[in-house]
């Protein structure tokens, strides 16, 4: 494979040549010695975790580093006389948006909120003089919006960014980037902020567009499966260095660098060690990377299939057993309707049905996954379960407490029995409180007669249980990394020994290698403390690894419910089928490349 690639690289003229590119902030080097060649029309993936320097590298290629950052080394684009790193801005400006363009991560903030999207696309055409006059630019913009498959492009051109969905906004960004038919397209995590199904559509669109136009693609992401799907070649960045590069197949099946191996191990939610836990950076040595040659891959797939069959059988017996027990959570005909602001003087204000009468129950010790995209109603459901919002109708019982319609004082018992771990570990911890105070705060409710020493004792035990040193208690949240902060959240949630732990996307803000550790910790604690777990996520692979049973939510209703493996291997509802088909899996993507 690699020799075939080399032949092609030699045949195709080089588009971009990067030699010992470095980026520094004062004395600190953020990126060091990045060198690579990109052939015309080649698609390269740049993988790394947050802080690895991948975004800074991409901005340096555009000559768009923020104030205070300085680039060194050499970046040459075929046919451009200067080195982009030290060329005057006036010269590089001619390239940007014309020969080299970029799509950013968050399409809402990347578009000007006060300007119609058609005008924003037309602008890039006009800047580079690719249209004779306003009218022609506007017309070309509509054509571009059509090319990125926006429905009704002429109408869409008149919309403001806030009137479009996340996926549509990212299509607008792509239309803008492709408007002048660039030779190089840089995408910085373009699908990370999008829902699973939309993510797949946008990704496919990017892939198709660059292949059709022969555009070179530099695709920056932390998601290995996305790279396996889209790119021919991969570079792995770690702490400002490219630690490994090669063809996608080589790197993902025969990683040579320890970090690549660790990243693969931690990303692979289908591989588990003998205790059924995910591989982490620490245990990556024992991990077997996915295979690309068919025999090996088949063997691996068969093993996985067997395991899933085992789980399926186990789940069935478990769910039979569970049916006889008292349920911890009972939700019946739950509805929540929000009233919108009035839009007309004469008609009634509009309403939004966030939950349209859903019912389900959770048995003690069960691990229930709730899967759904933004707007599916999963957050509303969680808020009601935790007594943070009131349902419009229906009943919710958690550990014997009626939640619906309960007054605040009556919810105290509920809060002892049900605790939440939130998505954003930074925003959900009070920055001015010491970790000790954060963790012991749930113990301060009336009825918990504990003195300070007892509370400290409990806090020490909890901190150790979540794998942090006791000295962490004296520090403040900002002194910890994202993963550590999520551990603090978990300790805070568990200190009053709840029966039910609700986790709302607890790992989606975390890096891949940290994600595996936090998931393992959750699994350990659920076992040790005999917790009932309700795990909310948009990430099907994570839910598949952790949960016994899954509820799939869509537009305020439960569209499908059942044992995890059954839902994943044989989804019945069209929406679930679409969801499963959209989610990408590293092993399958690698195999698909080979085929």
């Amino acid at each position, binding site marked *: 494979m690699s020799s075939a690639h080399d032949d092609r690289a030699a045949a195709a003229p080089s588009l971009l040549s990067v030699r010992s590119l470095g980026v520094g902030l004062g004395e600190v080097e953020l990126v060091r010695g990045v060198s690579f060649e990109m052939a015309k029309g080649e698609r390269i993936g740049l993988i790394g975790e947050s802080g690895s320097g991948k975004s800074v590298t991409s901005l340096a290629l*555009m000559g*768009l580093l923020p*104030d*205070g950052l300085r680039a060194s080394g050499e970046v040459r684009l075929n046919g451009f006389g200067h080195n982009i790193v030290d060329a005057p*801005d*006036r010269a590089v*400006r*001619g*390239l*940007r*948006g*014309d020969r080299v*363009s*970029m799509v*950013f991560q*968050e399409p809402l*903030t*990347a*578009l*000007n*909120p*006060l*300007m119609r999207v058609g005008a924003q696309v037309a*602008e*890039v055409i006009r*800047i*580079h003089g690719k249209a004779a006059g306003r009218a022609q630019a506007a017309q070309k913009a509509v054509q571009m919006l059509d090319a990125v498959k926006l429905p009704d492009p002429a109408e869409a051109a008149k919309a*403001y960014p*806030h*009137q479009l969905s996340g996926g549509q906004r990212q299509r607008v*960004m792509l239309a*803008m980037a492709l408007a002048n038919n660039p030779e190089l397209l840089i995408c910085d995590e373009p699908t990370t902020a999008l829902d699973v199904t939309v993510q797949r559509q946008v990704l496919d669109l990017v892939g198709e567009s660059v292949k059709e136009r022969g555009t070179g693609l530099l695709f920056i992401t932390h998601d290995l499966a996305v790279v396996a799907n889209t790119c021919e070649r991969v570079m792995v960045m770690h702490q400002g260095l490219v630690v490994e590069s090669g063809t996608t197949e080589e790197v993902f099946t025969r990683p040579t660098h320890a970090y690549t191996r660790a990243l693969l191990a931690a990303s692979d939610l289908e591989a588990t060690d003998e205790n059924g836990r995910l591989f982490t950076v620490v245990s990556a040595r024992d991990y077997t990377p996915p295979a690309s040659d068919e025999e090996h891959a088949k063997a691996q797939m068969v093993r996985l299939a067997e395991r899933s069959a085992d789980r399926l059988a186990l789940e069935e017996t478990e769910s039979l057993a569970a049916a006889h027990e008292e349920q911890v959570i009972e939700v019946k005909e739950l509805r929540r309707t929000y009233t*919108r*602001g*009035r*839009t*007309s*003087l004469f008609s009634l204000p*509009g309403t939004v049905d966030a939950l349209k009468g859903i019912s389900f129950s959770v048995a003690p010790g069960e691990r229930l996954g709730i899967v759904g995209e933004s707007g599916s109603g999963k957050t509303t459901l969680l808020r009601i379960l935790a007594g943070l919002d009131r349902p419009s109708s229906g009943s919710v019982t958690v550990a014997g407490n009626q939640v619906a319609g309960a007054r605040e004082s009556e919810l105290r018992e509920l809060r002892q029995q049900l605790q939440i771990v939130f998505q954003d570990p930074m925003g959900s911890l009070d920055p001015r409180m010491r970790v000790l105070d954060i963790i012991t705060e749930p113990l301060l409710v009336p009825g918990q007669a504990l003195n300070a020493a007892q509370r400290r004792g409990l806090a020490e035990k909890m901190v150790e249980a979540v794998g942090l040193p006791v000295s962490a208690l004296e520090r403040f949240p900002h002194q910890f990394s994202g993963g550590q902060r999520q551990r603090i959240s978990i300790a805070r949630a568990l200190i009053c020994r709840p029966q039910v732990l609700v986790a709302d996307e607890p790992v989606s803000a975390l890096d891949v290698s940290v994600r595996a550790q936090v998931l393992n910790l959750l699994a350990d604690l659920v076992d040790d403390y005999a917790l009932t777990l309700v795990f909310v996520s948009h990430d099907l692979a994570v839910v598949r690894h952790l949960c016994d049973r899954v509820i799939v939510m869509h537009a305020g209703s439960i569209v499908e419910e059942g044992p995890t493996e059954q839902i994943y291997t044989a989804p019945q509802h069209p929406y679930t089928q679409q969801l499963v088909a959209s989610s990408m899996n590293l092993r399958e993507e690698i195999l698909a490349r080979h085929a």
Partner: protein
Amino acid sequence: MLIRTFVNLARFVVSFVVASVLVFIVMRAVPGDPAQIAAGENATPELVEQMRREFGTDRPLIVQYWDWFSGLVTGNFGTSYVTRTELTGQIVDRVQVSLILVALAIIVALIVAIPAGTFAAVRHRDASGAVVSALSQLGIAIPGFLLGVLLVAVFSLRLGWFPSNGWVPPAEGVGAFLSRVTLPVMALAGVQAAILTRYVRSAVLEVMGEDYLRTARAKGLSPLQALLKHGLRNAAIPVITVTSVQLAALIIGAVVIERVFVIPGLGSFLLDSVGNRDMIAVQSVVMVLVGITLLINLLVDVLYTVLDPRIRQRTNA
């Protein structure tokens, strides 16, 4: 959009009525009977009683209120207790003077503050940007009347370029009007320009960190083009909010400057009326100020909807 306008108008009316009731009650609660004051310390009780009948203050409060309020909305402010003259003409004259002064001052302040604040933001890492920031900080600390006195000392006493005081309406001669209005407007605008420069600077700085400015650069615009084309309109919204608050404060704050330059504005009229215990005049002037402030808020809200499609959308879905 329609709904929003309707809600705003309703809010305007309700606020105005509530304010009139409050002002009326507060004025009655202030010790001192206007009839007693008008009749003099040594007047006989009969004379005072006669005064009360003349002023109408012997009638029930609710009747007095209605009399005053209905006059207010029809533009008839009544007769002063002290000077026994019609208030309407005086107030209208003085409102014109104050509005001209304040409007010119805020325009001058914005003309200075927008470029200065933008410059300070763009050059916030350089010495030149820091100098502008420091100057605006200093400007905030200099009271308007002091600036007024300084301006008079330099430009009229020493250089003799402008008269040191007085007022000529623009209709009676533009040249004379301009020469007399320049110094007070500069004195009023000085502090406002300094304050607004700070807000423009912070609004532009914030916008400069936005993703869409990076997008604009990635399209091939120069940093300045990106800022002018995509940044300033976004930065305008917080600046407009502050400007409207400043404008309301300025109308009342102009009183000191009016004193320094002997200008017959609303502020000095209010001060005189308070000194004379001319309750009906104080009451009416305060309500005119309330009305102007509410009108400014109404206009600013319309401006928001014009500038920001998201606000338009929220009520127009």
